[in-house]
Structures are given as C-alpha cells and as structure tokens.
C-alpha cells in the first residue's frame, strides 16, 4: 500500500540525512521525499511517499518518531487528504503538432511557456496519477526533460499535524 507520511522536523542541520539514512539503513522504500520550512521557521515539514505493508509502515512510523529531530508525524493517507505534485515538462513540438499539443495542455488545465524554437515548458499541479497521465499523453511530441516536485499533502478533514505541547 502507498502511504503519504507528513513529518514536522526541527529545522536543524543533519535532520534530513537522519531521515534519509533511516530509510536506506532499514531498507525502506522512498517513492518521493520533499522538505521545506513551514510558517514556523524553526520547523520544516517533510512529506514522504512510501510503499509497504501495514507492518512495515508501522515500523517506519515508529522509527521516524524515535528520531530526536522529529517533532510530530502523521500518515495522511489513513483518511481524507489532498495530495499535490507539481510537474514541469520540457517538450519539443513540431510545427504541424502545435494544435494537438495545445489541446492536451488545455485538457489538463496545464500552462505552456514557449522557451526556444519548437520547445515549450508545460507546468501542471495535480495528483501523482494525473501527473503520470500528463507525461504519458505527450506521445505525439518529444519529451526532453521532466521534473516533478514530489508529493505534498494535507489531511482534508479536521486532523492537524502540530507539535504536541510539552
């Protein structure tokens, strides 16, 4: 099963490598990992997408919780949640295919920026599946480069991830 785990992390040097080191040392899989500061500058929020059975995910959460830098964590996939990924795709569009290209961009609610000769950067945000679909639909054109932000997400019910007060 795919799980999205949100982690509030002390904004300390070395905290990221502790988390990534934990995953490699214990053979846990990371599909994607993103991290950036939050509105509280002393905390970073990390979003990890991992795949594993319940037992493995239970172990992942317990080991993450043990890290001295981890202030709070939550598996947002256990109930309603919103997940988003941003993708930038640089594509080559031959002149005779611009109409088809624009149709795809429109269908995905994406935007396209002309960058050089016959090259465009397409930008979209959506679920990971939608991002996959967008990339797959550029068969007619030539995909030059793809960059994905990795997943971020929030629980879309009343659950809140916050640091428990001491």
């Amino acid at each position, binding site marked *: 099963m795919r799980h999205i785990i949100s982690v509030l*992390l*002390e904004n300390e*040097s*070395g905290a990221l*490598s*502790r988390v990534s*080191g934990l995953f490699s*040392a214990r053979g846990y899989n990371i599909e994607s990992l993103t991290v950036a500061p939050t509105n509280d500058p002393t905390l970073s929020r990390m979003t990890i997408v991992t795949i594993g059975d319940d*037992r493995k995910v*239970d*172990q992942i959460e*317990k*080991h993450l*919780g*043990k890290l*001295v*830098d*981890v*202030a709070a964590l939550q598996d947002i996939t256990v109930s309603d949640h919103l997940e988003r990924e941003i993708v930038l795709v640089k594509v080559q569009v031959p002149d005779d295919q611009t109409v088809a290209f624009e149709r795809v961009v429109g269908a995905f609610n994406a935007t396209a920026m002309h960058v050089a000769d016959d090259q465009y950067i397409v930008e979209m945000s959506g679920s990971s599946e939608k991002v996959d679909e967008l990339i797959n639909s550029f068969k007619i054109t030539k995909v030059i480069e793809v960059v994905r932000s990795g997943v971020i997400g929030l629980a879309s019910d009343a659950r809140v991830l916050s*640091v*428990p*007060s*001491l």
Partner: protein
Amino acid sequence: MQLSGADIVVKSLKEEGVEYVFGYPGGAALHIYDAFHRQDDVKHILVRHEQGATHAADGYARATGKPGLVMVTSGPGITNAITGLATAYMDSIPLIVLSGQVMKPLIGYDAFQEIDAVGISRPCVKHNFLIQNVEDIAETIKRAFHIATTGRPGPVLIDIPKDITAQVTEFIYPESVEMRAYPPVKLPPLSEIVSGVEAMLNAKKPIIYSGGGVVLANAQEELRTLVRSLGFPCTNTLMGLGGYPHDDPLFIGMLGMHGTYEANMAMHDADLIVALGARFDDRITGTLDGFAPNAKILHVDIDPSVIDKNIKADLPIIGDVKDVLNGFNAELKRRRKDINPELTTEWWGQINEWRSYDSLWYDESDTIIKPQYVVQKLHEVTGGQAYVTSDVGQHQMFAAQFYGFSDTHRWINSGGLGTMGFGLPAAMGVKFAHPDADVACVTGEGSIQMCIQELGTCKQYDLPVKVINLNNRYLGMVRQWQEFSYEKRYSNSYMDSLPDFVKLAESYGHVGMLIEKPGDVEGALREAFALKDRLVFMDFITDREENVYPMIEAGKGHHEMRLRPGSKAQ
C-alpha cells in the same frame, strides 16, 4: 564567568558529575586537553587505542548505570571509536563521545585529519551534534546527557571544531533542557496494566522472559517481586543475566541460541510469554516460523519500535519497565486472592522434567582443562560476586552459562554487536567504577589480541583486573560452526603464532600464569585473586575442540536444539 570553549567543555562535564573521561589526544582536541590539564575534578584516562576508550567508558556505564565519557581527536581518532559507538548503540548503553573536529573554516576542504564525524557515526548513535558556535557548547552537552540517559539509552556524539574551543564566551550551565521533539516517556494507561495482569492470572503455561531493559531500568527488585508473587518460571536473555538470581528455583536459565533446554522448550510451549525489556532478536527466537505457536505475547518495552518488529504482540505496553512492573505488582497485590498456583502445577511438572535432563552437562576431565570448569571455579573463588566482562565466542557463552549471576550490572558483554576486543577495556572501566570489587575478564586467545594494548593502560593506572584467557588455540566459535555446518573444514579458524601470554603480561609489568592441568585451576585462581593489587593474566590451556551446547542452529526453532552427545537431554 568568561571561559574558552575548551574550559566550557570540561566545566560542563564537571557539572554533570563526570569522574572519568577515557580518551586519546590529537591536534583537533588539543585545546580541550589543555583544559583537562588546568583542573583535577574530571580525570582523563589515557588509553592505548580509541576503541579501548569507548569500551572502557561502556564498561563503566554498564557497571554503574551512569553515562560513560570518551574524548577523541578528529579523523582517525573518531573512526577508531566507531566500533565502540556501535557496540554501545546495539546494547542501549549511555555514552557521550566528544570528538575534536578541524577548524570550522576548513570543514569541507579535505583538511588534514578531517572526517565527517556526524555522518560516519549517524547509523550507530542515538543522536549526534556538530557544534557551530561557542555559545552552544554548554547547552549541547546538557542535551547530550539528557538524550543519552533517558528513554531507551544510547550513545551520543558531539563533534567540536577546534577554533570554537579557543573562542571565549560567558559560561552558564543550564539546569534543565526541554526538547519538544523528544518528550519524556509516559506512564502506560492503567487499563493496559489491568489487562496484562488478567492475562497472567489466567495463564496455565506462562513464562517471564526478561532482557537488558530490566538491567538498564534497575528493575531487578520489581522483577523478583512479580515472579515470586506469581510463582512463574523466569528466563533471562544474554543481556538480562543477573536480572533474576541464577540459583532461585523459579529461574530456568538463559534462553536463546545457547540457552538451556528448559528455557527454550518453555518458550516454545508457553501459552503466555511476558517479555520485559527484551526485543525478540534472532539469537533469542531462532527461526520465526513456528515460534511459540500457542503463546499470547505480552510485550513491555520503552521503545515503541521494538513492539511488533519481530513478533506481533497481543498485549503491547509501552513504558519504562520499572514503572510497568510497579503497576503489575500493585495490581497483583489488589488481586492477591485471584492468584491460583494450581493453574501452573502441570506446567511446572513439565518444566522440571526438562530441567532434569541437565542440558548444560559436560564431561569433566582430570587431564585436560574444560573451559566450563574454569568458569565454575571462578564463581566459587569470587563467591559469585565478581564483575565479569567477556569478549565474543565460546568463552562468552561458557561465562554466561556457568558463572551464575545473582545481581544486575555484574555481567558485562557485547550482546548485540558481538564485538571481539570488548572484554579487557570494559574491565578497565568497571575497575575504575568499583576499585575494590573483583573484576574478571573472561576471554579467548583470539579476542584478547584485538585490544591487548590496553594492558599498558592497566599498568599505568594500576588496574588489577584478572584476565581469564580460555586458550583453545582456535577461534572456537567459528570452528564450532565449521564443525557443525561445513564438515569440519576449519578455514582460517586456527590461532597460530600465539604470543607467550605469560611473558607478554610480564613485559607490561603484570603477573602472568600458565595453567595446563585441571588440578591447578582452583589454586591458580585463588592465588591470582589474592594478589589484590596486581593484574594477573591467566592463560588456561583448554580442551581444543570443546563445543557450546545446547545450540539452536540456523533455521531451527526453540524445540529443535542440538544437544551435547552423550548427555541425558539427548
């Protein structure tokens, strides 16, 4: 008070009540060494190799329950200390390792003796720090002590760039620390205690399986109360020995790969396993298929990640095992009339039958020294009260099986990592902690050579440790596996070109003894322990091909032990 970073380091250690720091100097640590020189509250002990420093601090910590302190320099200083960090980490021992680092402006430029100490130690510490500012030193040391000694204990490394130790700032040692991401351990809910007790009151085939957590939590009294009020059989792990007295009728011996027949069979047939500060590791469980097929598991541990890791718990309780045991005992007192010893009568009948097979039996000899015999005599000569450290191999298992411990913190070995070379430096640390106690290092001729240089440290600081070298001229445990699983192809498990250990000990200024006959064992031990102020290196020439039994071989379960040929158990 304005102080240099180096003085702040040493003063902070004093504030924490540190008596001894085990270490070895070098360029990046020299300001701190100068600060050691300016005072005599915190004593620095010069070892001969940084691995020795870590094991000595570790032995000190295991024998006292207080954190052990290590000081090393950058580069090779810290790389040499890694084995000791990993050893302490696997056994949850509180250590604080201070490492010098190259000057901050040089970090990242491959400076002389630069190594990423925080990176290289990360997988084998509970936490680590690279100090960035002189103002952070005191607070970081306070945090390090807090982290190392609370929750599930473990080693913490503090890396300090040299230039920071020369800078000056106001010294204020914080009285307490609060870390929002590292909250204190909570008491478990009463409902869990009540359910745990309910399960115990109804068990017909219970077993109490206690580990190193009981030792670390100083919960031996609480464990004894629980076991005795229920009249349940109790087994200890290798790390938990001493938690329950070896000669109590309710004690059924150590369990696991070289555990007794009765302990392993009882684990296999139990209907309730009460695991206390123990983690069901592979040396305990044997193969997981078919592990204790009919048992309900009540698992108590301070570390949530231990629960459900190897064995799924039916009744998990997360908390300090001492608190949980106090909870159990209070609840049992309330329900005293519900304790029914008849429920376990049949079970005890079965256990006593297993016990009558005497699975630790070995064939005594008047011509050749049996290693087990030496350990039994060691118990007699020291009245069972010695601190016993060991290395790793057959001798370790013989010490664990035959010494017979009555108290915690007396049996000091590297259970998790299995580090050869641990025994002698650990014994030094123990001797610093308990100068008047008998301290024996039970070792093998392979292991002792991994940290033998520490004989020099023992001389310098007059540490009258007794080294019990069970010399079988083999890497015995490796040879045993090769005998059982590789048709006696003894690939590289011999120990050739051995030194003359008597002369070697003498050359360091110690006493050496060579003991070759069983009849001389006891007399030699008495003579050695009577030499209160001398280190005696006792080289016992033992049976070359003695094996450790019982043994659960790879892929086998608790009920499939290999037993000593010719024994009743077989």
